[in-house]
């Protein structure tokens, strides 16, 4: 029986990958398998005080105090994180939770498991990044809407002008100063709060 060789998804080839696990026979196998995806692999051992963050994916042993060595706060990851689970001792599940990993990989490694962990970590991470970006933009827009509404109200009452004229004023200022409408609005709100 023959199997079709599946092409690698573009999201998981040509990556920068950090591997922080013992370079025994299994460790060598992991590095080789990752290199087969055209990854540039950097091996680090022992796990440093602070893991590097200039990588696309980090593979790291689940070790005591690991969450302290991750260079970002949970929820704001800079790279996809795959946690390597050793055969023994039993995994520290609370440590696993606080590391907020994107995927796990169990020792001993197999070729399929390595690829699966890479795809899971990378797609999970990039999707989270896109959602976070979208949420940031929504927050930004909400703040801008609020600022513009407050600035408009301030202009209407301090200058005794109508709504349209207030909007026009804010827009003109933004165009003249080449900044966004929300920046002008925030400045109007701030200066009004200082003066009153």
């Amino acid at each position, binding site marked *: 029986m023959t199997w079709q060789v599946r092409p690698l998804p573009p999201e998981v*080839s040509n990556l920068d990958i950090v591997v922080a696990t013992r370079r025994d026979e299994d460790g060598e196998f992991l590095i080789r398998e990752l290199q087969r995806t055209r990854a540039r692999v950097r091996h680090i051992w022992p796990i440093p005080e602070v893991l590097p963050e200039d990588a696309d994916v980090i593979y790291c042993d689940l070790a005591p105090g690991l969450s302290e060595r991750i260079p970002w706060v949970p929820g704001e990851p800079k790279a996809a994180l795959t946690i390597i689970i050793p055969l023994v001792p039993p995994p520290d599940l609370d440590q696993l939770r606080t590391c907020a990993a994107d995927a796990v990989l169990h020792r001993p490694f197999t070729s399929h498991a390595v690829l699966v962990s890479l795809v899971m970590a990378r797609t999970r991470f990039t999707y989270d990044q896109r959602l976070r970006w*979208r949420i940031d933009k929504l927050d930004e827009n909400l703040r801008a809407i609020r600022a513009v509404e407050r600035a408009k109200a301030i202009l209407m009452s301090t200058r005794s002008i109508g709504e349209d004229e207030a909007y026009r004023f804010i*827009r003109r200022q933004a165009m003249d100063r080449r900044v966004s409408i929300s920046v002008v609005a925030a400045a109007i709100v701030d200066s009004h709060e200082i003066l009153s």
Partner: protein
Amino acid sequence: MPESRGRTSEPWRVGVLFSKTGFMAVIEETQLRGTLLAIEEINAAGGINGRELVPIAYDPSSEAAAFGRYAKRLMVEDRITTIFGCYTSSSRKAVLPVVERLNGLLWYPTLYEGFEFSPNVIYTGAAPNQNSIALCRFLMDNYGTRFYFVGSDYVYPRESNRIMRELVRNNGGEVVGEVYLRLRAKHRDFAPVIRDIKALQPNVIFSTVVGDATIHLYQCYADAGFDPKTMPIASLTTTEAEIRAMGFDVGEGHITAAPYFQGVGGDSNSSFVAHYKKRYGEDEPTNMCVEAAYFQVHIFAKALEQANSLETDVLRPVVLGTEFDAPQGKISINPTCSHTDLWTRIGRVNRRGQFDVMQQSLTSVRADPYLIGYGRTVAFS
């Protein structure tokens, strides 16, 4: 291996999702034509970096859920990342989770109600600040302050009317009636609406009815003997395609706000209209939806030539900020919101089924999908 690497003559494959059947085909089929025309032009000029552009098109037959299913098929089975498609907001919302989760890029060539900003969509139709605001002002200046709203019952009309109601009220007008009909509404469904209008005597009927139902609305209006000179139907969606389907005499005198009408001047438009008619027939008019469907493929091609990759993370940054000499005039993809800075125009239907441009912006108008700054200071020529 990803399509981006290596020296290959393999075609660039892209997905296309517009309905050829069902109640939205009247307009979506024109968007399909605009898309295919642009693809043919690009291939006739040698493709993109020597590679042919090949569309994989499915017909979701005017059913929103089918758009989601076909988007999945395109991305999962056909291994496609770029999709051109969708007219209704319901269909866009069905495709959205798929392209966001699998990191695709949807090119959406239709005006919509705004208040959306996905990193996986390029919006090339008008946002409310590019059509609703100017339309409201034009109607109040020329016809009066009493508005009657009639719409199809789905996302776009309700959201669009929410914005229009605010504009009307802020300018001292009033909405005297508001009614929604099912998307597949028939001729007879409009009888009570016509009775209502007769009783309330508004100055303007603002319609967000889409698809085949548009034709029934305007025909019922004509049958009732109403006069567009004193009480026009104003719309953001009624184009040359719907006017042709309802009859030129039925459409005459009614108002639409859009970035593009077939009658706008310019070399880019003359050559676009000539190509379109040569390809699809002398009687086939272009419209704002064809135009957006057409120019967005050209912008895509321009970006792909530079990026040489269909991977969304590589292609999208190149698309943002791209300028293009579209049939409507010079436009650009606004990098802060992935919407397009488009022209604002108000047109009135003449007896040849074309729109006479009553007003137009001096330049393209910056897209403001969240209506943060409002487009109230748009200057008109």
